[in-house]
């Protein structure tokens, strides 16, 4: 029902992406008031280190929520991947390529494990991934206990701390941008992406149209496992150590960002632009809060409210738009 006529300016301004963009600008303005050093380009580039790993998991989470699933085991997968990398580095003296391989493989296996149980046995994703969250992190606790691994090779640090060539552009940022472009193309330009929307809107109808719903859902869970493994490689490299409590509570923020980015929680809608803006907005807002020494547990209050508002606000906006439109038509 999208008309080709020129949209009135207020309708463009009420698009969710536009609102997100204004929120992003507000965050940047507030941050630069809090710290005079914030607006420096090098500083902004440096702050992206703090949220690129989360951003990388938000991308497949977008696929999952669009097709009306959910995965809350991602932080557990990060812990498990990091733990296995730690073991390989400490006991086998594995080099950087081997560590990357182990991290990705662990993540992928965990994702496949989730996906198989969800699609083959037909158990709700909430139940499986909730158990997975504790199972995966639990294995890390069994293996590491209260120990930490810090014996990573020097070259490993580049992934999470390094910059491209002589510039100040972080490797993580570039990797994220490349992935975001790929995910955007897959979501908006391929049959796979179209199928995701179809499944999210009505999975029964999608099945009748010949879409292999369970295969796509399985692939989504394998994919988010793989990218959680990648995030684990980057995070472990950045902080240079592994503890079983690594990345605790990340699922809240990752799901918040995804939903805030305009991905409809009941599936079937969402776009890459909103999600990418939301990643930067939340990342920079968190950075701003850390500038005024807000403890992490208190930031979760903001994240929690943000998550709920992100779901309530678009609904009320749609309602408002409809009211204005009907009024105009009556005239």
């Amino acid at each position, binding site marked *: 029902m999208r008309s080709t006529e020129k949209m009135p300016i207020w309708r463009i301004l009420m698009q969710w992406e536009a609102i997100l963009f204004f929120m992003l600008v507000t965050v940047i303005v507030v941050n630069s008031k809090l710290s005079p050093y914030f607006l420096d380009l090098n500083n902004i580039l440096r702050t992206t280190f703090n949220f690129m790993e989360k951003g990388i998991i938000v991308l497949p989470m977008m696929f999952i929520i669009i097709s009306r699933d959910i995965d809350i085991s991602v932080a557990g997968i990060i812990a498990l991947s990091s733990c296995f990398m730690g073991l390989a580095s400490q006991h086998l003296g594995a080099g950087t390529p081997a560590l990357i391989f182990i991290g990705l493989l662990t993540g992928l296996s965990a994702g496949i494990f989730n996906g198989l149980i969800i699609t083959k046995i037909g*158990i709700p994703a909430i139940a499986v991934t909730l158990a997975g969250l504790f199972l995966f992190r639990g294995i890390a606790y069994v293996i590491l206990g209260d120990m930490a691994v810090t014996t990573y090779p020097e070259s490993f640090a580049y992934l999470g701390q390094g910059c491209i060539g002589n510039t100040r552009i972080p490797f993580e940022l570039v990797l994220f941008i490349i992935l975001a472009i790929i995910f955007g193309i897959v979501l908006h330009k391929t049959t796979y992406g179209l199928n995701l929307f179809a499944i999210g809107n009505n999975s029964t109808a999608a099945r009748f149209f010949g879409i292999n719903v369970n295969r796509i859902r399985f692939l989504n869970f394998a994919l988010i496992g793989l990218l959680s493994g990648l995030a684990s490689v980057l995070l472990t490299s950045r902080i240079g150590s592994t503890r079983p409590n690594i990345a605790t509570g990340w699922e809240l923020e990752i799901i918040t960002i995804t939903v805030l980015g305009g991905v409809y929680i009941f599936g079937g809608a969402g776009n890459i632009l909103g999600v990418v803006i939301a990643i930067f907005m939340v990342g920079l807002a968190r950075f701003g809060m850390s500038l005024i020494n807000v403890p992490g547990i208190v930031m979760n209050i903001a994240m929690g409210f943000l998550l709920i508002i992100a779901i309530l606000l678009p609904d009320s906006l749609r309602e408002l738009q409809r009211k204005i439109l009907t009024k105009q038509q009556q005239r």
Partner: protein
Amino acid sequence: MLEKVVKKREFTLLVLLVSFTLIISLRSPRFLSIGNFRDILDDTALLAMVAMGQFMVILIGGIDLSVGAGVALTGMSVALLHQYHPEIPIFAIVLLAILIGFSLGSFNGILVSLFRVPPIIVTLGTMGIYRGFVFVVSKGAWVSAHEMSDAFKNLPRGGFLGVSNLLFVTILCVIIFAIFLGYTRAGRELYAVGGNETASRYVGINLKKTKYLAFMLTGGLCGLAGLLWVARYASAQSDTALGFNLQTIAACVVGGVSFFGGSGTVLGVALGALFLGIVNNALTQLRISPFWQMGLQGLIVLVAVIINTIMEKRT
């Protein structure tokens, strides 16, 4: 008749519990002692209480990830109140704890029923919010044993005929909720809504009210449990009841509650909680590192959910 009893989940669980107990007692004789059993029952009591709340939410097809944070926030609030105003009588504190719990649960309930936000999202959000507020109200400090009066600490510990108040209150709750869910109209409506939402709307059940009720009652149970928790362990801190969400969900699914909603019994949930209590106690008795606990609980939930789903598909 006998066949019907044997096929019930509660019976299977009971057999499992008894055989499990016997196996462990072969390895560790102290496990079977009366003292140890009293410990297990007291440890299980708080879990069973909150698991009943979790059960009602799962019953309507939802999930509550904020119960642990709700327990912690209520516990911290009443502990602080007691610390600064020890003159407030204990029964007023009990009422206040339940009231705080009701309001935390109501907040979840309003968002779920009135604004139609999915329970997983609401409670994921309020989990962060409530847990954050524990830190805010306490400024990160603990309330420890010497800041609590003896009357406060004896609230769950005291008792009669060898039964602690804590256990007594829990058994009372189990009986009340078993009657509520089994024999009252409002209780049966919870089953109906979880079983088939569309059908229950057609027969005139108020969906919003029913969903709100489930969350509100869960909050109340969390509130009561929060007070008893801090009094029993004589300490309130920011990470009180961390990881409690999974345990309550585990008690439900082990007790035969279906994740699809609409089925399960209070007795099953109570036995499920007892199962987890025995497993946790056995880990200590067998001197297995506490680091096993988290992974094992995840595994228990996973296995129980798989068994439940396969059994449901067969019938």
